[in-house]
């Protein structure tokens, strides 16, 4: 069977991409039946890109993001990050990889409710061995970067949705990961706040941050450099 959904890095072996997604597939077991969340996906991401993965809910785009984030073992295929096959690593090595290389902005922020904004942002540094003072400085720097310098001591539920999103972004970038993943970053926000968040992501991208964003909202895609359309577990690259 000839596959024509893909035009990708596999045909250009001399070009090294930041991330290569090769023949990825993911099946789920639903009782007796096997459900294919991802049939086959092939694409690549280059350093410094701002890519949108777009599709309806249930299209497999969030599954793809969690596979990219090293959180979800694919059934088939492989993910190469700087030519490193990340699912060949042990789960502890993959945890280290997430800590160093990948920042994630979750759909519903996923802040820890009993920790202050500052503590939430410091969380990813807790396992890096940085000195307490250095952690404090970096967390405050990144909070200032997202415009929340004066809310460091609040608890998450004392903030608006847009502000919580900013905390989530701050936490995702505090370790300066080369890759930032965002799952529907504008999903829970009104359109004005959503625009502000997209502006912030675009600024981060123009400073060199590679961003991969999953969304079903065409509005959110107008800032991105490339769109990968996902439908029924397959993708096409524009």
């Amino acid at each position, binding site marked *: 069977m000839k596959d024509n959904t893909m035009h990708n890095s596999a045909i250009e072996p001399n070009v090294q991409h930041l991330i290569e997604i090769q023949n990825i597939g993911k099946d789920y077991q639903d009782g007796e039946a096997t459900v294919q969340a991802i049939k086959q996906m092939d694409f690549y991401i280059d350093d410094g890109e701002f890519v949108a993965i777009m599709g309806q809910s249930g299209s497999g785009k969030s599954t793809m993001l969690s596979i990219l984030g090293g959180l979800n073992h694919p059934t088939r295929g492989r993910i190469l990050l700087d030519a490193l096959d990340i699912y060949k690593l042990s789960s*502890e090595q993959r945890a280290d990889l997430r*800590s160093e290389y990948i920042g994630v902005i*979750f759909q519903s922020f*996923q802040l*820890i409710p009993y920790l202050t904004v500052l503590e939430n942002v410091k969380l990813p540094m*807790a396992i890096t061995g940085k000195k307490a003072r250095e952690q404090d400085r970096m967390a405050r720097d990144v909070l200032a970067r997202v415009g929340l310098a004066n809310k460091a001591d609040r608890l998450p539920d004392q903030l608006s949705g847009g502000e919580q999103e900013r905390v989530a972004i701050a936490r995702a970038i505090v*370790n300066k990961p080369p890759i930032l993943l965002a799952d529907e970053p504008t999903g829970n926000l009104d359109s004005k706040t959503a625009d502000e968040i997209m502006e912030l992501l675009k600024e981060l991208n123009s400073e060199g941050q590679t961003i991969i964003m999953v969304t079903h909202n065409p509005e959110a895609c107008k800032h991105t450099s490339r769109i990968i359309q996902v439908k029924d577990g397959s993708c096409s690259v524009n």
Partner: protein
Amino acid sequence: MMGSVNERTREIGIFRAIGFRRGHVMQIILLEAMVVGLVGGLLGYLGGNGIAWAALPLVVKSSSFAGFNYSLGGVALLLSVALSLIASLYPAQKASKLDPSEALRAL
């Protein structure tokens, strides 16, 4: 500790997603168990002595409180911490093995 682990599945998922190793999650749960054991042991020791002091006149006539037995207190604390740790081993193990993507539902 088992209940605490179940309640905090999502939280553990977040920890794992931002790069905490299984070992880190184990550490968090066991450290918490140690603190609970220490505080529980201390309260138990003090509470027990308090009750003994208050109840003594009701049981025996004309006798005075025997005073704190510190070595007994030390043993009680150690036992309490040890028990708490032992009881937490399985939940901690279970917590560290949670699949991060499942713990977070969609990512």
